[in-house]
């Protein structure tokens, strides 16, 4: 490789390189140029229209008045109009009856039977340890004095999930059979999953008023998508050759479905039901706003009265309920590990006492099986069902529970005993006071959580809000969003974005929307700043990933509202706890997808970079991050949607913005109209952000991507 080997002299070489560099500069200018021109245009418009400011009131459509009129019509016609007497009222009556029946049964059961049944089911599905913990969890419900509220919530969940499954599974099956139905369902389900749960409440209140039935209906609507989606997916992913084989044997379509397709799709369907249950649980608190009662009501009332301790107790009960339901249905779907008859973790198995405990357990189990067989074998002969004889433990457990239930009811020992009681609410309340007195300004200095919230408010949220709603002329905001849409997705997306932003103004929600948007932007920025680096770290260290996993799992299992409570303990009510809670809420999505994206980068590419002697930092910057970009952006997309959902909920605890306006509409009958409009504004904002971010994700997807 000497200079003589080259075809031309040094001058020619530098000439070629010059041209190359010039091309590169031009290219960079062309891609950056659009941005510069866009900003220039926006600045010019801003200068020309600087007196305009927020959206003019004269352009607002009086939609809220119309809604109020509609509400009045509904109230007037509830007893007379056919749609009520033939459809809405009977449906509502049926749901009410169903709910009462379930609730009555659950409260009739003696408390120890409920705890025992939960423990047995969990033990059967997940193992002995999980069973014991689940039983303790149920005892916790009673111990904090919320036994009835808990069972009310369980009843509500049961009814809502039962209805969701009764609708979702057949719809999913139909969608799997008819492509056209699937195509028309998909955008609807997408939209349903994009929208914050809040949005469903208002239309339901409009039609059904405030009570437990509308709460169930809102829950069903919110929780429906996963079971439809996963039933459809499960049936569609059944190997076609098995369907062909069934057809070849002359099976009718119904036989094929019942004997071949559905059984194979069952794990997927169960996963869908699991997700539906979790979604239903996640809006327990929100549904309490429209009269769901139960635990959600306790959380809501306590928070409103600033009894943070009580709120946390009830909130923890919701988490316990969520964890039990999640683990048990997860296990039942066959996703979890096999059940085990061990109490202690394997890492302790070498110690004598542990082994002693385990062998004692095994001995007890042998006795149980022997006793169970005494019952199960005659029973299976009597019923002529061989399967009964194979499960002595289950038969024994079932018999014990029935005897317990009847016996307990007979001697009137159903209620949870007052003697088992404990409460950590006073401690939490003390902690809240202590935090306020000591952490707000640590040791009398300027530093503390007060400083933290104040700085975020003063330096980020308020200026942004003022910028969007007052300083910038409203056409500039519309134009800016339109330009972003145009750049990311061409004319159609630009038109869509313009319509959404302008819609916010026409609805009369300009200022409130800009307030919410400012909070979302600050929270998303914080979530990205924390989440992406955490994801990078997790991708580089298996140990860190293992440490992070339970934390992220926990954050994802907690219903959004419950997450607010500890944050309020630290930061008091206001805009900031909402923002911090949404950062925590959105963190798992950003972290997980960053981690996943980097880990999915092909080993070859990373190895090649190493072979060229790249440092770890260089490998990350030049190979892994660019290749992981689609996944990271998808994570950001999810984070934005989660933040929006949370920020809206935080409206309840001083976050203000669109969330608060919606809640007002739920609380006061005279502002249902403006509540509805605020809900609509949330929908517009959600769709706007979602579409923009999806277009952005697509630009980063390498195959067939690019503008």
């Amino acid at each position, binding site marked *: 490789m000497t200079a003589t080997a080259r075809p031309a002299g040094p001058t020619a070489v530098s000439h070629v390189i010059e041209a190359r560099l010039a091309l590169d500069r031009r290219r960079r200018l062309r891609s950056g140029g659009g941005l510069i021109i866009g900003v220039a245009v926006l600045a010019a418009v801003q200068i020309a229209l600087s007196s305009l400011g927020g959206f003019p009131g004269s352009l607002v459509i009086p939609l809220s008045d119309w809604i109020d009129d509609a509400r009045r019509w509904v109230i007037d016609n509830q007893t007379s109009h056919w749609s009520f007497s033939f459809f809405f009222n009977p449906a509502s009556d049926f749901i009410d009856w169903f709910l009462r029946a379930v609730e009555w049964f659950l409260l009739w059961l003696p408390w120890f039977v409920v705890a025992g049944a939960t423990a047995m089911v969990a033990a059967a599905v997940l193992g002995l340890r999980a069973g014991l913990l689940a039983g303790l969890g149920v005892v916790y419900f009673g111990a904090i004095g919320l036994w009835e509220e808990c069972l009310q919530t369980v009843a509500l969940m049961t009814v809502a999930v039962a209805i969701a499954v009764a609708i979702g599974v057949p719809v999913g099956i139909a969608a799997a059979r008819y492509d056209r139905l699937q195509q028309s369902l998909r955008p609807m389900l997408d939209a349903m999953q994009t929208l914050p749960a809040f949005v469903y409440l208002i239309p339901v209140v409009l039609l059904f008023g405030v009570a437990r039935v509308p709460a169930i209906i809102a829950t069903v609507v919110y929780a429906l998508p996963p079971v439809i989606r996963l039933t459809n997916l499960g049936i569609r992913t059944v190997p076609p050759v098995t369907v062909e084989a069934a057809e070849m*044997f002359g099976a009718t379509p119904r036989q094929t479905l019942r004997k071949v397709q559905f059984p194979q799709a069952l794990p997927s369907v169960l996963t869908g039901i699991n997700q539906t249950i979790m979604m239903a649980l996640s809006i327990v608190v929100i549904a309490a706003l429209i009269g769901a009662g139960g635990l959600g009501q306790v959380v809501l009332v306590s928070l409103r009265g600033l009894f943070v301790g009580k709120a946390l107790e009830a909130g923890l009960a919701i988490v316990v309920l969520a964890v039990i339901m999640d683990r048990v249905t997860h296990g039942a779907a066959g996703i979890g590990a096999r059940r085990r008859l061990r109490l202690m973790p394997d890492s302790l198995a070498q110690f004598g006492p542990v082994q002693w405990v385990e062998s004692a357990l095994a001995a007890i189990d042998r006795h149980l099986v022997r006793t169970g067989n005494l019952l199960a074998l005659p029973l299976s002969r009597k019923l002529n069902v061989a399967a009964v004889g194979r499960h002595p433990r289950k038969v024994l457990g079932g018999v014990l529970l029935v005897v317990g239930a009847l016996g307990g009811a007979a001697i009137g020992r159903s209620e949870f005993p007052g003697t088992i009681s404990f409460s950590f609410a006073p401690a939490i309340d003390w902690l809240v006071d202590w935090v306020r007195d000591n952490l707000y300004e640590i040791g009398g200095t300027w530093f503390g959580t007060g400083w933290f919230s104040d700085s975020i408010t003063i330096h980020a949220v308020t200026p942004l809000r003022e910028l969007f709603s007052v300083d910038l002329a409203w056409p500039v905001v519309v134009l800016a969003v339109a330009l972003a849409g145009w750049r990311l997705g061409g004319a159609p997306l630009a038109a869509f974005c313009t319509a959404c932003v302008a819609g916010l103004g026409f609805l009369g929600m300009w200022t409130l929307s800009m307030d919410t948007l400012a909070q979302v932007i600050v929270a998303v920025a914080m979530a990205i700043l924390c989440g992406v680096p955490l994801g990078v770290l997790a991708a580089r260290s298996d140990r860190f990933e293992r440490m992070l996993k339970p934390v992220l799992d926990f954050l994802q299992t907690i219903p959004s509202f419950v997450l607010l409570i500890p944050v309020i303990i630290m930061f008091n009510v206001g805009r900031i706890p909402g923002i911090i809670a949404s950062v925590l809420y959105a963190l798992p999505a950003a972290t997980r997808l960053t981690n996943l994206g980097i880990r999915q980068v092909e080993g070859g590419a990373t190895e090649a970079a190493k072979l060229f002697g790249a440092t770890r930092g260089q490998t990350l910057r030049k190979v892994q991050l660019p290749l992981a970009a689609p996944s990271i952006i998808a994570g950001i997309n999810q984070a934005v949607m989660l933040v929006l959902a949370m920020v809206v909920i935080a409206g309840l605890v001083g976050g203000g913005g669109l969330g608060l306006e919606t809640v007002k509409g739920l609380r006061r009958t005279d502002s249902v109209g403006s509540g509805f409009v605020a809900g609509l504004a949330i929908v517009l904002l959600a769709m706007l952000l979602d579409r923009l971010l999806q277009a952005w994700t697509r630009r980063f997807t390498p195959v067939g991507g690019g503008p």
Partner: protein
Amino acid sequence: MKGHVRDHYIGAVVNTEQTPLKCREITKVFGENTAAARALLTEGSSRQEVLERTGCLVAVRDATFAVERGEIFVVMGLSGSGKSTLIRCLSRLIEPTSGTVEIDGIPIGDLDDQGLRELRRTRLSMVFQHFGLFPHRRVIDNVAFGLEIQGAAKPDRYERALEVLEVVGLQDWTDHFPQQLSGGMQQRVGLARALCVEPEILFFDEPFSALDPLIRRDMQDELLSLQANTRRTLVFITHDFHEALKLGDRIAIMKDGEFVQVGTPEQIIAAPADEYVREFTEDAPKTKVITVGSVMRPLTGEAPRGVPVRLASVLDEVLPRLLSSPEDLCVADEQGEIVGTVDRDRVAELLGANPRTGFAAGGGPVESS
């Protein structure tokens, strides 16, 4: 040597029963504009032209054949040749674009859904390439599936399923799930499932292609011995020429959706219809297929002495004698009458370099119109 007698020609002439499976001009076109594609096909356009002008893919074109009772009819072709589509057209798992299929004289194109189901339940069965077993059912419930669909009571269908499982040697595996079994065992389950309903016609869609070579050979032998006992009508799809030679009473060689040649293994080996077929035959075990009859010279003068070889023997059986004997061997027909002679030059010519020999064997190219 095969476990059963190749007497399909005699069978075809003697058999007065209805031919179980008759297909005429089956054509299958995939795509939107099948009408235009068919019009082009009748004009004689090539598959490539149809694809370019209509965007339609011609998967099968004018397949005409009949399969007699007890016969194994093999369709051999490489992937994409349309053989899987063809076998699915025979049971209307795929609806043919045109052409007729008659099963026991019934044109199945005219059947409604109910009639078609009835036909599939009672007379047809199929063994699939990747087994197509139901992963959520135990072996016995997989095998009993066909009877279950017909509404048979549990004791009856289990009794029959156990019988069939014994035939394929899986009587000890009834309560396992398919994925707990090896590939060969899984395909035995597939075979048992197909046999359980006692079908008259069995379709095999590359059933052994996913198996290891040794297990594949076992399965082939097993299929032949099963067939020797029950004499069903079999249509067997494969991409393996050796498998076709081993199993087929007659073989149809398929290329680009059309039959290139249909004939007995011997006919195809001895007189490949074109260059494409000849390439397959090149490394085929010719001596295991070609019979003495097709290389024999008719008796002209006096017969040579010695114990005669039989007309129907394949060359493999007579080669040791031929190579050690100084003279030509005489050939006797079934009645023991000496009808001709076979000499070393003739056999050497066949096994040697020159492929274009003038053997008296039939099975010319199939006419495409």
